[in-house]
């Protein structure tokens, strides 16, 4: 019923890595977006959002991700989603947002 975000800067890959734990939902998504963009703004690189501990996402969470994606694209940076759980992968399927994001950690990679 809440969200914690672990943030690591991966020096080797030169990317921000975010590990949201819990739920990116109406109650947490704007804080999540803010946190990701703050880190991005402090050091502009590609970013990875790892879904290993992400249990739930709703449309406001998708909106936050889209908004992040657009901000990064303006500066020609990429956003990767990795290790999404099946239930969350399903939401990306349904909404066809799997075409908008680079999804890693799957057969397709």
């Amino acid at each position, binding site marked *: 019923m809440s969200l914690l975000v672990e943030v690591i800067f991966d020096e080797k890959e030169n990317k921000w890595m975010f590990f949201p734990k819990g739920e990116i939902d109406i109650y947490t998504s704007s804080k999540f977006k803010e946190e990701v963009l703050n880190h991005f703004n402090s050091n502009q690189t590609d970013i990875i959002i790892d879904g290993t501990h992400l249990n739930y996402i709703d449309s406001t969470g998708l*909106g936050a991700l889209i908004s992040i994606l657009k901000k990064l694209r303006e500066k020609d940076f990429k956003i990767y989603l990795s290790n999404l759980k099946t239930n969350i992968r399903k939401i990306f399927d349904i909404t066809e947002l799997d075409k908008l994001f680079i999804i890693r950690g799957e057969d397709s990679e």
Partner: protein
Amino acid sequence: MNKDIVKLQIPKEPSYISLVRLTASGIAYSMALNIDEIEDIKVSIGEACINSLNFSEEDEISLTFIIDEEKLSITVSGVKENIPEELDEKRERELGLLIIKSLMDEVVFNEKGIEMIKYIEDDIQ
């Protein structure tokens, strides 16, 4: 056939939506729905509540669960199908409706809100 009715009413506040998801999961679980179906219901009811939060004119969101042997019907007050053109989050709200329509077996809009139905399948696995 017996129909059981559970009603839930929450303040129209983001912080209560996880409570709705929890209660809905509990109901779905007790109906012996499988994990995927419970998840579908949880996600759909979350989206219905977000919609209601945006568009309802009431101060509360009212939910009714009608439980019988073959299906679970959930109505959520204040949910609107037609999303105003000028809204910033128009596409986001449309994603919400798309998710509900994809995950539930039947979706009906009426003047009060939305009715969403999930049928209980006899899983032959």
